[in-house]
């Protein structure tokens, strides 16, 4: 397993796909980074040399991609901002409900998590 950008340990997959294990790098960025670093995306990660890896890293740093910790921090900062100004969107995030006006009478399971049955407790 190779190390890239500190903590990330992609594996024996093709480099095009292992790169996506970095938080903040998806299919598009992965491909364009490899293209600029002039590395064959079909090579397995384990077959890359140290120089190849550092070349990839340099491209990512050069392009100032927010990646891993920085990106995560950026996202939480955005949420914090919305919540601190008490906007509707912040409130929905706090409650764990959909933020963009979707219905909640049914569905919205991704945001609401698993189903919790609420039974009616009747007096005997």
């Amino acid at each position, binding site marked *: 397993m190779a190390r890239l950008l500190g903590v990330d340990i992609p594996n024996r997959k093709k480099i095009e796909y292992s790169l996506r294990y970095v938080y903040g790098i998806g299919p598009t960025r992965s491909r364009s980074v490899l293209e600029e670093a002039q590395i064959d995306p079909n090579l397995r990660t384990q077959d890359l040399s140290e120089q190849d890896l550092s070349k990839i890293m340099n491209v990512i740093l050069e392009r100032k991609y927010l990646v891993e910790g920085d990106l995560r921090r950026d996202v939480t900062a955005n949420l914090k901002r919305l919540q*601190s*100004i*008490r*906007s*509707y*969107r912040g409130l929905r995030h706090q409650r764990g409900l959909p933020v963009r006006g979707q219905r909640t009478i049914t569905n919205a399971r991704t945001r609401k998590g698993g189903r919790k049955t*609420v039974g*009616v*407790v009747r*007096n005997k």
Partner: protein
Amino acid sequence: MSRSIKKGYFVELSLERKVRRAQQSDDRKPIKTWSRRSTITPDFVGLNLAVHNGKNFLTVYVTENMVGHKLGEFSHTRTFRSHNPHTQK
């Protein structure tokens, strides 16, 4: 879809006028408005606005962070009554 940049921010004209007057006169009395669709521009910072939520006017103190949001985002329109029949038994 977000609004075209070409068009610029939308702020209700009447509200814009009132905001400008308030900023010049140092008057910090809440400005009543129904215009929830108006965008908060930097001119609004430091003002109190009473934004209608369909029933009442909720006072919103505008801070720098709110610039770019709409007024309606800060004046909640729904009251949430909790789902908890168990505790009320």
